[in-house]
């Protein structure tokens, strides 16, 4: 009996019954990744399918295949992709969205930056939350920096610049009032220490947290304004660039690169990729998260 050598297959097949998902969703997943850089993993494929389902209902598309046609055929293509991206990133905004990012920040990056800047006279850390929406990320960063204020960052000035295109979002952000859903990942420790109770269902960030954050309106595509953002140690821009076309995205990323200090880091959303839009940033891994690094002059890797 002859057994022909099998093509190499992964030892571990994906768990659960992914087979139940229409293969078209994998095609949609790949399209979404190509266009936006958002990757929905196998286990989250059902979320993508749900998002598509809601869009299909609105459009009256009967099958996933019909919906695929709407996503790929002109003239509906661009608009529909945007709608779908909205659907699949909805509900991702909350405080403490990515613990691995915060761990990388506090355990690896801050000690490094502090060591690097130790000889400078003014000890200043500048962080930019670009596309801050309603402020969840900005305040999360502020609280984590406050946690370090008596240790690593003792004697340091921390500035968090938070910008968004949308005035209404900024107003909400400034108020700093959040419901249960937004604080679902926030530990009791942080809730007690940095929030006051508004009512049964709402918490408000305390003034000492707000003091660290400056909110303002900024269009990331406004080149002249982008040039003014200087001397940053960290840039966070989560689920914002996914809506940009390749050319604009590339332009914004180039700005971020020049806005950053040498040795600075740029973070995207947790399932988001820069693709190959910039070859100056180094893609780097920390436990459970990735970031883009502008090499320090010392590293000789620029």
């Amino acid at each position, binding site marked *: 009996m002859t057994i022909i050598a099998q093509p190499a297959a992964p030892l*571990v*097949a994906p768990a659960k019954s992914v087979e139940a998902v229409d293969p078209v969703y994998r095609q949609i997943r790949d399209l979404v990744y190509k266009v936006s850089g958002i990757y929905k993993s196998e286990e989250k494929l059902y979320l993508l399918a749900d998002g598509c389902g809601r869009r299909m209902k609105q459009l009256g598309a009967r099958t996933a295949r019909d919906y695929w046609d709407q996503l790929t055929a002109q003239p509906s293509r661009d608009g529909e992709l945007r709608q779908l991206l909205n659907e699949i990133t909805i509900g991702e905004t909350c405080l403490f969205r990515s613990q691995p990012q915060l761990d990388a920040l506090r355990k690896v990056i801050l000690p490094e930056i502090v060591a690097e800047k130790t000889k400078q006279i003014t000890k200043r850390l500048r962080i930019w939350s670009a596309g801050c929406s309603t402020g969840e990320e900005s305040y999360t960063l502020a609280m984590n920096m406050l946690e370090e204020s008596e240790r690593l960052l003792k004697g340091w000035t921390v500035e968090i610049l938070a910008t968004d295109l949308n005035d209404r979002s900024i107003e909400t952000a400034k108020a700093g009032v959040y419901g249960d859903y937004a604080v679902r990942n926030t530990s009791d420790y942080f809730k007690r220490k940095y929030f006051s109770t508004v009512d049964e269902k709402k918490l408000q960030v305390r003034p000492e947290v707000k003091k660290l954050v400056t909110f303002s309106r900024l269009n990331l595509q406004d080149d002249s304004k982008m040039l003014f953002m200087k001397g940053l140690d960290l840039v966070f821009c989560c689920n914002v660039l996914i809506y940009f076309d390749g050319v604009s995205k590339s332009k914004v990323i180039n700005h971020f690169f020049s806005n950053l200090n040498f040795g600075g880091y740029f973070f995207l959303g947790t399932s988001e990729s820069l693709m190959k839009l910039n070859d100056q940033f180094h893609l780097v*891994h920390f436990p459970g998260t990735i970031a883009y690094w502008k090499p320090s002059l010392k590293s000789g890797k620029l």
Partner: protein
Amino acid sequence: MTVSIAETIRERVQQIETMPAIPAVFLPLMKLLSDSGESVKLDEVVRLVSYDGTIAGQCLRVAGSPLFGLPKPPESIKSAVLTLGLRRVETILLTCCLGQAFPAKKWVLDPVIFWRHSLGCAMVCRKFSEKLGTADVEKAYMAGLLHDIGFMVNCLAFSKEFTGAVARAGELEIPLGEAEQATMGFTHCETGQALAEKWKLADDVIDVIAHHHAIEHSQKAQALVALVHLSDLLCRMRGLGYGYYERHMVDLIADPAWAILLKEHRELGGVDLVRFTFELDEAVEGIHALVATVFGSAPVSA
């Protein structure tokens, strides 16, 4: 390494003789796996496995687990091969053999964590080499599976010294190999090499075991060593490490191993590392389940 340390390692590894031996089918299976490209091996595999009922039973249990999505568990090794393919069954067998070779109770490291890392690394090696279009995908799998066997030697032959190294690594959140060097004066690379030589493993696999943390010393199989080194790092950054936070940043593309691998496989330049990382995350759950099936209920030898 001084002569006396090398001597101690050799002596202690020789004493592992008294420890539970490696199943008799392991080495012939390894050999079969190394001879890639052969198509008629089914009878030989079946013959080998029939010597060891425990291994055969465990293999069938893994093959019947939800991971492989078979409608019902295969009744014999032969039918497992027919449904899953020879290569896959061989690697399952190899994995089961290793689980048998080392008893659970003598461990300093949590065996579940150890096997998750080893299997994770094996899987990443395989996926990587598939992307690179290398002929010897199974060799890569095997090298990944075995790269850290030195930790098993340390558990068995240097348990007191190794306990100190593990504690130090966890406390300082540094790579385990660094902690070994600092507390013991040698690492799992040296002890693993001694065991691999005793087992008479293939030269290139020995090279991987001995030099996956110091590629510059590798001579026989530099590209394979580089592949395992990168996969090892990636696993440790994506939840398949040694069970504690490793405080460091990993820049895979700037790692010398990347350049070595790229020299031999131009395809590496086209690999989307971010997507590759996200795909690895998809497999983590499956690896946990596989380890539970293979090692979770493995009988503890006397």
